[in-house]
């Protein structure tokens, strides 16, 4: 095992708890897409370019995007509910 591989594994090991511990979903979007990139990097280093490509598209782009949209949708729902309550 080369140094590079150890480093990227340790990076994964450090970032994962970071994503779990960022309790606010808005922060989590950022940490998650960083984590997705770290995973993609790991796939590249471990000679899995096919998986790396799909990890970038899914893990680092699509998934955070869907979470962002989820949060936006929920914020709008909550605002609407507030407004209706005021009426």
């Amino acid at each position, binding site marked *: *095992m080369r140094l590079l591989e150890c480093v990227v594994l340790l990076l*994964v090991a450090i970032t*994962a708890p970071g994503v*779990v511990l960022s*309790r606010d979903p808005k922060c989590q979007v950022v940490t998650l897409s960083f984590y997705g990139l770290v995973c993609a990097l790991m796939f590249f280093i471990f000679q899995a370019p096919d998986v790396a490509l799909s990890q970038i598209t*899914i893990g680092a782009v699509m998934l955070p995007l869907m979470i962002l949209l989820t949060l936006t949708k929920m914020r709008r*729902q909550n605002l609407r509910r507030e407004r209706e309550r005021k009426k």
Partner: protein
Amino acid sequence: MILNYLAYGVAAWVFLWGLYGIVTSKNLVHQVVCLAILQTSTYVLLLAIGFKVGGTAPIFADIPVGAPVVDPLVQALMLTDVVVEGTVMALLLSMVVKANEVAGTVDPEELRIMMG
């Protein structure tokens, strides 16, 4: 010696952190993300299993057949895994949005309608 098992250890470590996140989560969106983290432990494990020191990617465009390559099967499994991740998360997130719409909360503690 211990380095040989580092990747397996990292897989178990990420798995347990993912579980911890799901168990202690107070927000359904957070919980879904933790499930995604839990899933990445399977990537780490599969990747480590099929790895070969000095092997290249199993693509024979530039290298001759028979050259040392890493195992292609685990990569095929991981591709399936990535798709499953993306789609299951999309489904779960839409459930969360809908739950927020009809119940007005994303705290699992407050969403307990059915119990006992």
